[in-house]
């Protein structure tokens, strides 16, 4: 039997949710540890960067990299792990397409820092302090990684073998991928793991709109008593389902909340947010041109609603930071 | 000219009823003979007949001769609207020596056959009732004479356009004092604004 495959898990600009979804495997982790060696998992155990630096190239069989690339440290580790591992999986929405951190691309660094360090409600008087590149301490100088002007997704800086969408990827899908990795039968490089080709609407069993139904006012989920049986669009609530890939098992829909598009664009969708704008824009019902604007204004945060997970991967982001 | 209102003249009433065919306008919907038969049964009706065109000379001559022959002192004409031929029938009866206001019309054309073509039987009943109503009214009619009033022999023409000018010229040339009133500072109206006018293509001032 060949040597046990070496697995690595790393978390860059991440909330840790993707790490937790692995721990959710529970006892099954024990089987995994019998069949494979986890050689790098800083979030769970005390691994040091040097451990990876001392490895030979491509020593790691499969590296599960989650989290977006926000600062120089993330980029450095991404390059390092790419060098050290045969197969690299962009694990979760942040690595796959920038995720929630990607929404920062709407703002420049200065206004971000202002928000975080000055105007945030939980700060009483920041006297304008800012993180410094290097700070001299009695023990010696400590330096912080530099903050990039925009958030990048993993695929932007290294080439990736597989994508696994989801925020976080659903634990059952993670288990299926683990078994594929352990049994060595991963599909062709570049394909998407842990999701199926259809869109969320395909798997959603809610009653769809009557022919000719149109929306004359949008409401946010907390503003309306959501009916669990009918499609959210018929209730005037934005649901990204039509343009989002299925495979998550729709936990949100079961929890009576509209899909927010974390599994990324469905097959054939070039830019998830623009496509949703196109679909929802065509549904607005009025013959009176002036009322059109008032209805549009009821969509409070278009970019946030349509690009909640994919802003960093969007064409607009590329246009802005190219 | 007796102005005494309503003194009941108890001379013996002799009413004549004339039901007009008006070609097919009335006869096309109801049968005038049936109205005539009905009228004959009414009190004081001494003579009732139908006629093809009451307003024509033949119809009027029939009424005039009957007034002589049957010594009629009231006449009922069941035909068209008073706005059409009341003057005609009043003139006819007065030529026969009967006071024109002792003639009463029943409108069984515009307000009966023309409006109830879809309900012939109802139209017939209505024609009978309208004729009876006219007969009832003649029972209490008194002879009246037109009131004549003095006439100021001056005319007023409002509007100084081509129609107003032609009217005032015609009136003035008959020797009638005419006032031509025009709200604009000049007479001539729209015509004066026009370039040459058809057919003579001469100047329009």
């Amino acid at each position, binding site marked *: 039997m060949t040597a046990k495959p070496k697995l690595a898990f790393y978390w860059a600009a991440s909330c840790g949710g993707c790490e937790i979804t692995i721990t959710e495997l529970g006892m099954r982790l024990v089987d995994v540890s019998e069949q494979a060696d986890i050689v790098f998992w800083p979030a769970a155990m005390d691994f040091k960067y040097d451990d990876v630096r001392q490895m030979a190239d491509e020593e790691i069989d499969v590296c599960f990299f989650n989290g977006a690339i926000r600062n120089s440290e993330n980029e450095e580790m991404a390059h390092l792990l790419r060098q050290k591992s045969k197969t690299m999986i962009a694990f979760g929405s942040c690595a796959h397409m920038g995720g929630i951190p990607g929404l920062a691309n709407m703002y420049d660094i200065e206004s971000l820092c202002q928000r975080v360090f000055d105007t945030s409600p939980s700060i009483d008087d920041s006297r304008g302090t800012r993180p410094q590149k290097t700070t001299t301490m009695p023990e010696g100088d400590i330096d912080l990684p530099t903050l990039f002007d925009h958030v990048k997704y993993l695929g932007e800086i290294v080439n990736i073998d597989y994508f696994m969408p989801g925020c976080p990827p659903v634990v059952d899908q993670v288990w299926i991928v683990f078994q594929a990795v352990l049994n060595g039968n991963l599909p062709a490089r570049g394909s998407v793991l842990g999701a199926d080709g259809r869109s969320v609407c395909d798997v959603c069993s809610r009653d769809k709109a009557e022919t000719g139904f149109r929306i004359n006012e949008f409401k946010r989920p907390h503003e309306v008593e959501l009916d669990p049986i009918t499609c959210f*669009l018929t209730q005037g609530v934005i649901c990204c389902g039509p343009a989002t890939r299925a495979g998550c098992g729709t936990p949100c829909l079961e929890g009576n909340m509209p899909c927010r598009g974390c599994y990324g664009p469905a097959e054939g969708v070039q830019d998830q947010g623009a496509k949703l*704008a196109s*679909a929802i*824009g065509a549904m607005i019902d009025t013959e009176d041109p002036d009322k059109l604007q008032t209805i549009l204004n009821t969509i409070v945060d278009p970019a946030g609603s349509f690009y909640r997970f994919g802003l960093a991967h969007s064409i607009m982001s590329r246009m802005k930071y190219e | 000219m007796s102005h005494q209102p309503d003194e009941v003249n108890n001379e013996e009433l002799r009413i004549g009823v004339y039901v007009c065919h008006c070609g097919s306008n009335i006869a096309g919907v109801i049968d005038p003979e049936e109205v005539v038969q009905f009228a004959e049964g009414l009190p004081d009706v001494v003579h009732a007949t139908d006629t093809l065109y009451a307003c024509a000379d033949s119809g009027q001559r029939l009424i005039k001769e009957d007034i002589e022959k049957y010594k009629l002192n009231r006449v009922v004409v069941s035909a068209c609207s008073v706005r059409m031929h009341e003057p005609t029938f009043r003139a006819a009866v007065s030529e026969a020596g009967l006071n024109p206001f002792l003639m009463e019309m029943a409108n069984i054309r515009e307000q009966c056959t023309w409006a109830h073509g879809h309900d012939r039987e109802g139209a017939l009943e209505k024609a009978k009732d309208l004729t009876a109503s006219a007969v009832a009214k003649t029972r209490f009619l008194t002879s009246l004479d037109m009131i004549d009033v003095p006439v100021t022999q001056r005319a007023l023409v409002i509007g100084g356009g081509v129609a107003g000018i032609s009217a005032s010229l015609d009136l003035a040339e008959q020797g009638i004092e005419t006032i031509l009133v025009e709200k604009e500072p000049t007479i001539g109206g729209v015509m004066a604004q026009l370039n040459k006018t058809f057919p003579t293509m001469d100047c329009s001032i």
Partner: protein
Amino acid sequence: MSHLPTTITFASEVKAIPGGEHLELCYSCGTCVSKCLIQQKVDPAYNPRRLLRMVMMDLKTDAYLDPTTWLCSECDLCYEACPQEIHISQVITAVKHLAVEAGFTSPLIAVSVDEDLCSGCGICAMVCPYEAPSLFEKEVNGEVDRLSQVDQNKCMGCGTCVGACPLSAIGREGVTNTEIEAQIPTPESKPPTLITFICDWSLRAEDDLKILESYPPDQVNIVHIPCTGRIDPQHALMALDSGVRGVLVCGCKPGECHYKRGNYAATCKMGLLDSLLGQMNLPEKQIQFVQIGTQDRGRIRHEVDGMLSALFDIKEAV
């Protein structure tokens, strides 16, 4: 003479359908024929005046075979122009209704649904001005699947559904995403300054179209779409992404859309795209949506020149 028609004529059948009244008042003045663009742009045999005449003269089969019955898209331009206040488009729709009942079918090529791609989300059924698509249940290898189907006689080919369908599962030759995307230049093919998505009906006079085509290809590329309802913000962004510096979407004035509500859908899509660009504080003047009216002759020149000079300023500024 009673007012109710005793014998059932073709005209009385048409008048019985709501909107079909007053058709006997038509004194054949031809206003509707010249106000409507279908004869000038699609089929010389199209003539609403003649169709009304056929209805009145009881020529049922001629009417059912006449292209007017099938090509009218109920845009009501003729209704507001008719001096006899006849709702001409409703009379034509009534005739079409009777024609369909009599088994005749529309010569127009309707959109069709690719059942492998369709997810049954129902968006096409919501946005269609003619309510041609509708959802239905179907047994697909074992389990019940919900799909969309299109009523061949109702679809006018405006493409609003194609623009809205997230999965490119609906379409017809001429409006599919692949054909439109093929006309969007790629970075390598030296992209023009401006790309114009122009709807087929907003430029009334031929020489307006000539004005648009007179611009050198490296300055202005033209993409024809049946209606601005077909526009997809993705395509606008893809154009900007591949180096085109500006996108001009040109459709009809409110109330004059040839497909009833295509320009309202476009107004909303471009409005949403504007707010997206605004949130990313990208320059907004890059994408413009203009609505040209029936009497705005020569206005296309102002819009294109204005856009080119605006783009020139942006180029200087950045």
